[in-house]
């Protein structure tokens, strides 16, 4: 059996909005193996955010099972789920979501500190990671003094620093101009070439085209699962 980092079996996710039950995902099967670069594509309302939340261990399915690195998320307590998330997932958000009033290095140190690493070790690892992403001279800049592209690279460094099984990028180019966006996609491709598993959530078909595998969602169901250059 290949090394499955994500396994979704008949996953449903229903939300109660007022008295109305809305189905965001209506029974989805998906397997992502280690080292894959998958784009999850769909218009808003297709269920891709729900998919991201489930893969990202931020949410649990209403029915079916979600296994991340072999652990089923529905059986875990909030604490255990957080531990799994901390170990397995690195998030890259659309609006960068750098922490307020903190410097680049403090942002990258935060996930390590939450894992219980010492400040000294966290600082060392964060410095390495930021230097690797070309931000070695911006360690103590706070977010107001970083450009959009730099902020997103800090966010990517923060996602990578714990060595997660999956890098989960939610519209990572959404807040960037096309040139900077392209650079971020290049960076993701490079990370993929280094062997990392990348899951890219996007509504943008052009962006999605940069991934070797593309999962199309519509109305809470998988419409198509394409592989190869599109």
């Amino acid at each position, binding site marked *: 059996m290949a090394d499955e980092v994500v396994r979704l079996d008949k996953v449903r996710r229903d939300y109660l909005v007022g008295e109305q039950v809305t189905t965001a995902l209506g029974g989805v099967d998906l397997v992502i193996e280690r080292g894959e670069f998958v784009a999850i594509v769909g218009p808003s309302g297709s269920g891709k955010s729900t998919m991201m939340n489930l893969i990202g261990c*931020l949410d649990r399915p209403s029915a079916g099972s979600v296994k991340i690195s072999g652990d089923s998320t529905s059986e875990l307590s909030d604490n255990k789920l957080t531990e799994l998330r901390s170990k397995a997932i690195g998030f890259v958000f659309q609006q960068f979501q750098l922490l307020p009033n903190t410097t680049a290095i403090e942002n990258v140190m935060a996930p390590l500190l939450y894992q219980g690493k010492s400040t000294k070790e966290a600082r060392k690892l964060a410095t390495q990671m930021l230097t690797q992403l070309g931000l070695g001279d911006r360690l103590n800049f706070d977010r107001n003094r970083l450009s959009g592209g730099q902020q997103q690279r800090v966010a990517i460094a923060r996602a990578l620093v714990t060595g997660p099984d999956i890098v989960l990028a939610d519209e990572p180019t959404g807040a960037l101009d096309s040139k900077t966006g392209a650079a971020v996609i290049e960076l993701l491709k490079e990370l993929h070439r280094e062997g990392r598993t990348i899951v890219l959530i996007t509504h943008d078909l052009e962006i999605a085209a940069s991934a070797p595998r593309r999962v199309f969602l519509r109305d809470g169901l998988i419409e198509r699962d394409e592989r190869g250059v599109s």
Partner: protein
Amino acid sequence: MRILGTAALALNRIWATKVRSLLTMLGVVIGVAAIVALTSIVDGASQGINKSLATLGTNQLNITAMAPDSLTELDAKALAALDNVSVMFVQTQNQGTIATQDSRVNARLVGVSSQYFEAVKPAIALGSYLSSSAYASGSKDVVFGADAANDLGITKELLGNTVKLNGQDFRLVGVLDDQTGFGTSGRVYVTVESARKLFSQYPYVSSIVIQANTPEQVDTLQLQADLLLRQRHGLGAETTARYTITNQASLIAAVGSITATLGLLLTGIAAISLLVGGIGIMNIMLVSVRERTREIGVRRAIGAKQSNILIQFLIEAIVLSLAGGVVGLIFGEIAAFFLAVLGDWVFSVRLDTVLLALGFSLLVGVVFGVWPARQAAKLEPIDALRFE
């Protein structure tokens, strides 16, 4: 994540919102400053009163006449003969005038028996007390209280010279240094015999002070004295006497209970202001939780547990409150220092006040920080991340 790192984070955040944090702290600052300043006032005041009372001796009973003729020198002699009485003196007093060649003022003329100075030991500024030879020979000597001396402009040169009391010649032998004293100012002291020549030819006295050998005997002595006086005056046990017997120890106890009540009252007021300060902190923390919902979401996403978020917000509330407490303590002690200078009592920074102030502000931080912190910790990560 370690506590220290979380505390640093909290300080960071507080520094980032300086003005708001300062305003939020203000309630606690005022509350703590009030506690510190007020306890020092109560402390200083009771210190002063107790000092004055203590100089009169704690073993004493004051028997005061309620009418000019209710106590006599014979009563005093009989009281002196009771068991366990170590010292006895009498006072007889009246309003009168005192005069030098240049000026003339009103004063209280007090006749005291020979044991008075030995028992009360007032501080002396110039000259000496009334001498035993003055009592023996009946010479008309006078000792001035500090205020009387001031009123009349008594200087060192006048010592040994003649001053006039109610028009009669007296020799000035001493001036007391009793400005901080208790009821001795504006007075001049002469022998009981001289006093009789000044204003009362009859052997009546205005008060008799007796002192028990030990503090434990005071209560018994009080009963004995009352019984004796009732017998001498032919009063039944139920008849209202025309004198009162006050116990120095019970006076101190009364002052103690007044200051305790006062202290309680002031603590109550301070507690209310701390409560208000605490509510201010809770309010701002709730606002902060709402404003930072996304940040909380991001922190949860990158691996923060509920407990990390709880501790982060709780520590922030505690740091706010404790910082308010420290600032309040400093302001309170500064106020206490100036009050001590004004009120002429000893200023000291008491460890228990410091611990009380810091303890209270810590408590306020915890009590009013817990709820907002729990709100923050209980946010669902996905809701928090989606929050606009």
